[in-house]
């Protein structure tokens, strides 16, 4: 098991390297720079600015400096390797680390809340549908599931605002800060994921329930609750766990639109504005951070397999 984890951790190194190189090349391939203004600056000032941020260096050197492989012009190793994401180029007084510290918790809270809704709604819905197959419950939950899959968060968001904030007045229209603020955006984000989870849970429960060991569990007189939760659900959860990893990363990264609709001060806004402003270090930082999230959550999912199904072993 630990060998498996170590091997997977080593594998993340080329993955992160590849992502950093592609992102770096892409952002630098976009014409224009962070200091382009409508009124051109004097060439000396422009040159000094470029020098201050190390943008006068050759491209490969900028990359290795940023990653922390080589000494930057001021003679330090200060890069990703040292967990230093560099200074934001367009927001003079802030470092990327500070931007993360201020805004990542917001996006992460929203992502986790959405994931909780996705699992909390999706799994019970799927179980009910599978236990009462072809009943009204089954049809209702599957109808809900197809609505959830088909109606994207960009549509659900405004409708929720319209109903719960503008018409009923129960929740604040937008903003961030209290529990009430989290409800609508996380629902808008989590609903489609909950639909995917509900369908997966149903399909996989329907398969597991017909297994011999479920019959054995029933035969030895276990209560129905124990049979379903401990024996059936634990096994049926494996395909669900598979999608949870990328889903979590998608929920955390896919919040741009929701953050914009609900005026939430998360990271999404910085990612988009940094691209239009050519704020190279912020673009690199957010992309790498999200990639790390994705890699870590996938690893976590793989490890949970072994817990869910002892038959799965990693050599």
């Amino acid at each position, binding site marked *: 098991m630990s060998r498996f984890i170590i091997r997977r951790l080593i594998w*993340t190194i*080329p*993955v992160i390297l*590849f*992502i950093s190189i*592609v*992102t770096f090349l*892409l*952002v630098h*391939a*976009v*014409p*224009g720079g962070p200091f382009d203004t409508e009124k051109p600056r004097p060439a000396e000032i422009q040159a000094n600015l470029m020098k201050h941020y190390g943008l006068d260096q050759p491209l490969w050197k900028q990359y290795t400096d940023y990653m922390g492989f080589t000494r930057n012009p001021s003679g330090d190793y200060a890069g990703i390797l040292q967990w230093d994401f560099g200074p934001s180029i367009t927001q003079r007084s802030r470092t990327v680390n500070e931007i993360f510290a201020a805004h990542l918790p917001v996006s992460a809270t929203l992502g986790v809340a959405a994931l909780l809704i996705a699992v909390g709604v999706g799994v019970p819905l799927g179980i009910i549908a599978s236990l009462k197959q072809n009943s009204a419950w089954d049809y209702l939950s599957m109808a809900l599931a*197809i609505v959830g*899959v*088909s*109606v*994207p968060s*960009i*549509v659900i*968001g*405004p*409708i929720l*605002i*319209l109903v719960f904030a*503008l*018409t009923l007045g129960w929740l604040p*229209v937008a903003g961030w800060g209290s529990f009430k603020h989290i409800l609508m955006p996380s629902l808008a984000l989590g609903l489609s994921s909950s639909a995917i989870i509900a369908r997966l849970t149903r399909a996989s429960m329907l398969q597991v329930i017909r297994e011999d060991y479920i019959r054995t569990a029933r035969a030895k007189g276990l209560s129905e609750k124990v049979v379903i939760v401990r024996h059936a659900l634990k096994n049926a959860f494996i395909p669900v766990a598979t999608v949870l990893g*990328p889903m979590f*990363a*998608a929920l955390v*990264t*896919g919040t*741009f*639109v929701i953050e*914009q*609709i609900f005026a939430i001060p998360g990271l999404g806004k910085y*990612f*988009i504005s940094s*691209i*239009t402003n050519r704020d190279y270090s912020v*673009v690199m930082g*957010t*992309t790498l951070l*999200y*990639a790390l999230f*994705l*890699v870590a959550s*996938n690893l976590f999912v793989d490890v949970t397999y072994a817990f869910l199904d002892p038959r799965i072993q990693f050599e």
Partner: protein
Amino acid sequence: MTKQESAARALASGRADAQGLNSENQQKVTNLWQDAIYRLTRNRAAVLGLILIVLLVLMSAFAHVVAPMHFTAGDAALNNAVPLWLTKVMPGHMETYTQISDIYPLGADYLGRDLLSRVIYGTRVSLPVGFVGALTALLIGLIYGSVSGYYGGKVDNIMMRIVDIMYAFPTMLLIILMMAFFKSSFSGAATPGTLAYEFNRINKVVDSLLGLQSGGMLFIFIGIGLTAWMGIARLARGQILSLKEKEFILASHMIGARDGRIIWRHILPNIIGPILVSVTLAIPGYISTEVFLSFIGLGVDPPAPSWGAMISDGAKALRSYPHQVLLPALFLAVTMFAFNFLGDGLRDALDPRMRGTK
């Protein structure tokens, strides 16, 4: 299928035999594709989805006939105008603050352009994105997956590691980065002979083929196509890995068939079912990707009408003019429903375990 129906079907095929049609005909009835089509047409939701898709395709093809106006036409003085009947239907007291004008069947947007026409023309953005995305994903994914699965061993290992790396890329971020790159380096490139110029020229051709003035659709196609093929590649590879050990593949090797022929004639027809299903179910994803991109301003260039951009514009005045969001949202949701219904129906119809049941 009910008992009577199956009885009737058995009777019908029996009668065909009695009429002297040979057993070849009977084999046709149980042929996978005919069986699948039969089961698909029994599935009401799938048929509804198919009808909706056909209607949407017709609507986009004949948008210039169906839509009351061109998507850029309008009167800026009548911005946010609302027809009288709508003020009575919508909540609040719209009539107290808005201009009333019955020129527009469903009102005008913030620039005084007809909402309905723009939503109808919006199918010319969303549907091509869905179909081209699916086609590109299918083409790249199928070729990549087939090669990887068929040759196996080291080739397979390397190719699948590449897919793994691509999977670790946050897709949405990659698309956003690519769109930013395309938009600023390609559009507006004016020096003939350069790559950017050629891209831009093709882009203009694509836009004018779709009847959009300045969509930048090619870039969206490329962005989505390049990030959408990995799932198909994995699926195709997995299917081929299990298929290539089968006796009939060995047999074709024995009679000296070339690799290309074996892949094309013997393997592809056997794996196309699940791949078709997964592509159909992926189409809503491509459509919503474009909507997301246009929402944040990195998708279709205005004035081309994208539902995402319309939702974004409308959301700014959600309290005053909720219909400006609801209309494109409704079209988007209906389109997504249609593809999901059809995809689900296809999956059930092509599932070998379901054969002969319904």
